[in-house]
């Protein structure tokens, strides 16, 4: 065991073993304490804990009691280790009582170090009941002349405030005195605590900020804190004053000249994050960040480039001045910095600089890790969607890097990007599909090959010359593993089904697959030959067959698996319709993927996004909703409860032609409770045109396993009827024994108030973009156009006004027109959507703003149905 010959392996803890150390801990009980030896044993115990070793309950208790004996020793070093040990053991309430008196004695000791540490330990382990006993000492400690003691009390106060706010709030006077302390860190800790005590009192926070921004703040940390509070006050004070001067802006700007880089950076970042910041306000902050870009410290360069990267999302023009410095960062040793610089440049670049940038990036790509390459690929995809005309060079770039070496995640990111470009830029489709075809000629990832083959099967037949893809697909049947071969067979069948003229050739190829060595490949080939009528006749493919080939498989695989396992062979064939379609833990999955990125290959390549499909399947599986017809739109989930309440409920509004269904996604966050017969009682008295038709309760809602309850309303057909609904969650609650997980038999009826829910006009409009707005506009009947002007009154800013109208209409902004350049006096915004009843509608908004921030708007609407054009105006007029 003691193999410590080699120098490199030497460690004083070599061969250390828990049992032996616990034995050693008996020295704590010696009548004559050997302080050094005791310290050493504690160090060993702490080492074990630090290495991830755990003590059983009994072991921990024994160690704890032994350690308490050490308070007899007067050795300062040992005492310090005792404090550390007690904190690490986090004793239980009845154990805490044992050490309380020793710690309280230390809290009143003349030794500063004892006082400071005893406060920290006691506050860490106490459960609140003790607090009233020690409160007096803590108040004294806050104004102790020793800064370490005062800081210990203040920091402990910050922790205690989370659990016992009412006690800490009584210390305001002392804390306020400590804010004036000459000791730098005491001021910092006091400021943090004072702000937390007063955080719900806006006026008090504002006063605090006003007085401190004029006074002296001693440490950079306290200065950073003050900057954060100042930003909060600015945020909450809302609109700018009439003169356009923002209160406290001068203070933030003065911090840009502070001697500490920490403070300068904090202030610069605060300025960039001000609501609707103006270019004039932004400039000094950008200037200091630009200086930081050439600092010798990597941390400072990183901080600056990361902030500028964020600014570039909203104010690309403001960052262009830094472009030269950014370009030199492309060769930074720290690849995080280089990647941030590249992606910033991609955001600030204009259409004309795209080609030059792509050249620089090509060199850069070869020497960064995959994780950074993925970030760059994402940035290029956004750039391409922003400048669709540049798709050629960007698509080329993607296809080039697709050919180079790279891991699965990186290749998947590229393929996903190409798929998205194909979907959103019609002109890019054919070249994109060919790039994908070339990629699968030499692709080492089975998953990507099969996904691309599937995508080709859907998109390929719709192109001008589907036959040119056949070669690439059939090559797979020769060259790949069985999984890829099987998927190539399916793709061939899809071409056959969709393009009648290709059928005879497809049959020839499929017949060759009948001799494949793999079962699955042969089975598929046989199946497709039969369904497509492979006896040689060139007939039009049945609708049933097309559904079979292209239709969406709408049963969760888990459910299918369970049903198949339960099926016992008998006369009666397995009925796929008997498989339940309800997706169990759907709301949770949604939370995990907050819909940030388009999912590329994962989602079906055309049509609505997959959540919509999931909703449609969920609803169609519920018989009560079967006669509601086709689902028009499902809203994103609207939260009806605050975060971290007992029951979390959000609602999805499903719009049908004559009905609205509210899907309440409920989660029970209390382990000791089981809810049964959960319903939502909806009061529609402020939604007169809606009448409730049915409510589908949720039978049981166990802890942390989300479930859904539904309420359906009837409404006037095809009209965008609006209304306000108030909701109460009603249920029977049963106690659950946490040890067994079993619920009691008897339950109690209970209610829980939820927030109100609005059905708004935007719920009746689908966000559907058009790639060329001008074309679409001109193809629409000019007779359907309705134009009117509206005064929107004084607004916070032009951007805010534009956003409000977009949100009111719930339509898709086109060609990036939702972004308002800073300081513009006018703006044009293009929107597109589909109105309930599947009526396409286009909107042209022209905004203008005058000196008093009064915004006027001209609204022009064209639509496939004149009445919809009128309705849009009604929505705006009443909004």
């Amino acid at each position, binding site marked *: 065991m003691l193999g410590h010959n080699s120098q490199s392996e030497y460690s004083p803890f070599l061969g250390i073993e828990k049992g032996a150390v616990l034995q050693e801990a008996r020295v704590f009980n010696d009548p004559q304490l050997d302080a050094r030896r005791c310290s050493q044993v504690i160090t060993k115990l702490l080492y074990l804990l630090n290495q991830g070793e755990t003590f059983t309950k009994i072991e921990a208790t024994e160690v704890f009691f032994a350690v308490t004996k050490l308070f007899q020793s007067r050795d*300062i070093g040992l005492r310090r280790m005792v404090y550390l040990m007690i904190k690490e053991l986090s004793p239980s309430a009845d154990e805490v009582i044992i050490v309380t008196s020793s710690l309280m004695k230390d809290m009143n000791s003349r030794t500063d170090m004892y006082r400071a540490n005893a406060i920290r330990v006691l506050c860490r382990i106490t459960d609140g009941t003790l607090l009233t006993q020690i409160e007096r000492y803590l108040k004294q400690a806050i104004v102790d002349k020793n800064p370490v003691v005062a800081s210990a009390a203040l920091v402990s106060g910050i922790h205690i405030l989370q659990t016992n706010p009412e006690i800490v709030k009584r210390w305001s006077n002392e804390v306020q005195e400590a804010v004036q302390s000459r000791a730098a860190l005491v001021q910092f800790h006091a400021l943090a605590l004072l702000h937390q005590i007063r955080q719900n009192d806006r006026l008090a926070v504002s006063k605090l900020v006003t007085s401190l921004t004029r006074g002296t703040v001693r440490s950079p940390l306290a200065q950073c804190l003050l900057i954060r509070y100042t930003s909060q006050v600015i945020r909450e004070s809302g609109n700018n004053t009439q003169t356009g001067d923002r209160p406290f802006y001068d203070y933030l700007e003065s911090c840009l000249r502070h001697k500490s880089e920490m403070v300068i950076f904090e202030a610069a970042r605060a300025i960039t994050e001000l609501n609707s910041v103006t270019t004039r306000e932004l400039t000094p902050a950008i200037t200091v960040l630009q200086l930081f870009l050439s600092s010798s*410290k*990597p941390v400072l360069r990183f901080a600056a480039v990361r902030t500028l990267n964020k600014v570039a999302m909203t104010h690309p023009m403001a960052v262009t001045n830094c472009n030269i410095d950014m370009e030199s960062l492309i060769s930074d040793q720290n690849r995080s910095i280089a990647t941030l610089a590249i992606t910033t440049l991609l955001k600030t670049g204009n259409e004309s600089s795209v080609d030059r940038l792509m050249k620089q990036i090509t060199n850069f790509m070869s020497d960064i890790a995959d994780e950074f390459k993925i970030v760059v690929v994402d940035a290029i995809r956004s750039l391409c969607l922003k400048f669709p005309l540049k798709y050629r060079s960007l698509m080329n770039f993607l296809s080039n890097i697709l050919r180079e070496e790279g891991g699965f995640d990186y290749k998947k990111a590229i393929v996903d990007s190409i798929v998205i470009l194909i979907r959103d830029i019609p002109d890019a489709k054919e070249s994109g599909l060919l790039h994908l075809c070339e990629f699968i000629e030499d692709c080492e990832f089975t998953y990507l090959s099969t996904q691309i083959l599937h995508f080709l099967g859907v998109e390929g037949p719709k192109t001008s010359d589907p036959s040119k893809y056949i070669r690439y697909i059939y090559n797979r049947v020769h060259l790949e593993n069985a999984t890829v071969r099987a998927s190539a067979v399916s793709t061939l069948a899809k071409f056959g089904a969709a393009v009648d003229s290709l059928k005879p050739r497809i049959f020839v190829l499929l017949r060759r697959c009948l001799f494949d060595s793999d079962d699955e490949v042969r089975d598929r080939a046989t199946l497709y030959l039969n369904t497509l009528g492979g006896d040689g006749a060139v007939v039009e493919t049945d609708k049933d067959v097309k559904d079979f080939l292209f239709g969406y498989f709408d049963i969760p695989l888990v459910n299918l698996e369970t049903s198949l396992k339960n099926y016992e062979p008998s006369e009666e064939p397995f009925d796929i319709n008997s498989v339940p379609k309800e997706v169990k833990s759907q709301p949770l999955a949604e939370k995990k993927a907050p819909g940030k990125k388009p999912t590329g290959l994962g989602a079906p390549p055309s049509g609505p996004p997959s959540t919509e499909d999931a909703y449609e399947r969920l609803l169609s599986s519920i018989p009560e909703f079967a006669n509601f017809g086709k689902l028009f739109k499902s809203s994103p989930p609207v939260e009806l409860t605050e975060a971290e309440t007992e029951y979390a409920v959000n609602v999805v509004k499903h719009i049908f032609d004559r009905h609205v269904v509210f899907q309440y996604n409920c989660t029970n966050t209390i382990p000791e409770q089981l809810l049964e017969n959960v319903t939502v009682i909806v009061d529609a008295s402020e939604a007169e045109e809606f009448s409730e038709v049915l409510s589908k309760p949720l039978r049981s809602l166990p802890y942390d396993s989300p479930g859904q309850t539904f309420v359906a309303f009837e409404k006037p057909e095809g009209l965008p009827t609006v209304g306000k609904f108030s909701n109460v969650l009603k249920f029977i609650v049963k106690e659950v024994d946490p040890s067994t997980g079993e619920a009691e038999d008897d339950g109690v009826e209970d209610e829980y108030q939820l927030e109100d829910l609005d059905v708004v006009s935007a719920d009746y409009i689908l966000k559907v973009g058009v790639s060329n707005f001008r074309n679409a506009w001109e193809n629409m009947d000019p007779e359907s156009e309705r134009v009117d002007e509206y005064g929107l009154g004084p607004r916070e800013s032009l951007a805010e006004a534009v956003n409000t109208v977009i949100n009111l209409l719930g339509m898709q902004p086109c060609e990036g027109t939702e972004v308002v350049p800073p300081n513009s006096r006018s703006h044009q915004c293009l929107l597109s959507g589909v109105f309930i009843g599947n009526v396409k509608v286009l909107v042209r908004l022209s905004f203008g703003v005058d000196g008093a921030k009064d915004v006027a708007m001209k609204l022009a609407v064209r639509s496939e149905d004149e009445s919809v054009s009128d309705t849009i105006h009604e929505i705006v007029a009443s909004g």
Partner: protein
Amino acid sequence: MSPPYTDSCPSVKNILLLDSEGKRVAVKYYSDDWPTNGAKEAYEKAIFTKTQKTNARTEAEITMYENHIIVYKFVQDLHFFVTGSEDENEMILATVLQGFFEAVGLLLRGNVEKREALENLDLILLCIDEIADGGIILETDPNVIAGKVASNSLDSASSLSEQTLSQALATAREHFTRSLLK
């Protein structure tokens, strides 16, 4: 939900001291992002591997992993890390890191290496304890941190002023090493 960073106190999520193979010398976690020892070890392995090949010897370096910002510095065979939230001011994290490795340098009298650190593990643990309390930054000045740790390691209540800092450290260190090697 945690409040937006702008309203919150500057804080750290963990302070880590690993060796040149990524093994723990001393670690302290303050946030519940890593609930189990397994999660902690996985995190340490991930950031060790991610930073291993970089040169963080002359200047402190920085990287991001998941939603964390990590500042780090290597001295001999020791790797120092401080993790903060992605919204934290990077310069604050760098100041904490600097306080940490410079204080360790003072406490180990310039012999900043794994063996020395393990022999004086009590000093390292006390040092981390003096830097942050529950994630809230207590002190960032390396001299003050080391001074507080050293004053604790004295045998008697004799004040620090009677000895120089280095003497005090020497005494403390010798005591511990001798007894540990017995």
